[in-house]
């Protein structure tokens, strides 16, 4: 598989990071680890929402950040689809308007139809005109996923998508992510502290502790090898 994303990050504060990661096109990578390990900070560095002291982020051959060369592309220019842990839906807009807000580079006439298609893909038909406060947590999450995909991103980032959702919502989200994977070769990075969910949908699991990747395993190896740091961390 061709490499779609390569990152190298280093900083001492506020959260120490010394982190490298390559993600192939079509690959889903899960960053797992304890709270405060720096997983979300890695996502924010990829998205351009946080500047590490030393950073190099290359996506599809384009340099998004290179502190040595003085390159730091703004978040709005990176074309990243990010599903926030809080969903971060615009509360004064309907589900459809939220998705349309991420379609600034297509014609105004085409936006509503495209938003409708994405919401239907997330099985949200009939809820397009509801505001976030009128939707359940799982529905809000799927609107956030539709919005993240609306910009035709280079990479999809999901921050703790399985926290604070019940089992039916988790299953629904698994299906939604599987649908995204089936329809595109988008590289996906998921941050989670739930290793079971990570093992269900990710091709590769990376254990992050204190800002460092201490182990990376593909799903099969994680399933079959009981003597791994991931397995030991999971047993804690």
């Amino acid at each position, binding site marked *: 598989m061709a490499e779609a994303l390569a990152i190298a990050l280093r900083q001492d504060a506020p959260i120490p990071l010394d982190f490298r990661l390559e993600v192939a096109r079509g690959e889903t990578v899960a960053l797992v680890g304890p709270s405060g390990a720096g997983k979300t900070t890695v996502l924010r560095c990829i998205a351009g929402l946080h500047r590490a002291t030393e950073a190099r982020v290359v996506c599809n051959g384009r340099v998004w950040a290179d502190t040595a060369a003085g390159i730091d592309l703004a978040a709005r220019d990176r074309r990243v689809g990010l599903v926030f842990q809080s969903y971060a839906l615009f*509360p004064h807009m309907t589900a459809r308007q939220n998705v349309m807000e991420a379609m600034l580079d297509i014609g105004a006439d085409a936006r509503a139809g495209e938003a409708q298609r994405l919401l239907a893909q997330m099985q949200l038909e009939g809820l397009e005109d509801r505001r976030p406060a009128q939707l359940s947590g799982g529905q809000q999450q799927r609107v956030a996923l539709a919005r993240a995909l609306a910009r035709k991103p280079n990479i999809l980032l999901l921050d703790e998508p399985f926290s604070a959702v019940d089992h039916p919502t988790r299953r629904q989200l698994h299906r939604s992510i599987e649908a995204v994977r089936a329809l595109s070769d988008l590289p996906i990075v998921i941050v989670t502290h739930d290793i079971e969910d990570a093992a269900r949908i990710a091709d590769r699991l990376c254990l992050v502790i204190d800002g460092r990747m201490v182990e990376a395993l593909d799903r099969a190896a994680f399933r079959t090898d009981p003597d791994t740091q991931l397995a030991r961390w999971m047993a804690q």
Partner: protein
Amino acid sequence: MDWQALNLSLALGGMTVLILMPIALLLGRWLAFARFRGRAVIEALVTLPLVLPPTVIGFYLLSGMGPSSPIGRAWQGLFGDGLVFTFEAVLIASVIVNLPFAVQPAQRAFEAIGQDLRDAAATCGHSSWRCLWRIELPLAWPGLLTGAVLSFAHTLGEFGVVLMVGGSIPGETRTLALSIYDRVQGFDMQGANSMALVLMAISLATVSMTFVLSQRGRRHG
């Protein structure tokens, strides 16, 4: 009823709000989101008119805009007349005195918008201006409206600073509040009472409007 003073007060209130709101929007947003050394000093300076006696502010404004001050001399050079004891001087003073009434509600309203929402707007491809227009203003408008109405109502009732900077020149700087004072000085209690009632009714109506619109904004926001 001193209609001239009422018209002057309404004009002063309206123009103060028109000049003040863009300043409050930009300053309030900057103070809400920017992190820099010395921010507390700027916040304190903005708040100062709330705690200083109007005569103190009036004294410094009078000195700062007087004929021997750089601002006063520049004004004289540009327009041929002095700045103090004019409507323009009262307007400048009014904008400065009302800064905390407009900036603080704006700042709180912007602070209430979560960082996640602004980050989400950035990942959606929004420029800073588009984020302001599409995300921040629709969420912050009740705070901005509160600031505008408070400033307007406070301007109608402002006395000390207007007297210090503008005197009480009919048709130029004599506002309704000053006219009430003059009527009381002249033992015209009935005239003072009718004007005081008008001032109170306008203030009550504008403040009530803020609450109604803010509640509506929260319901639909």
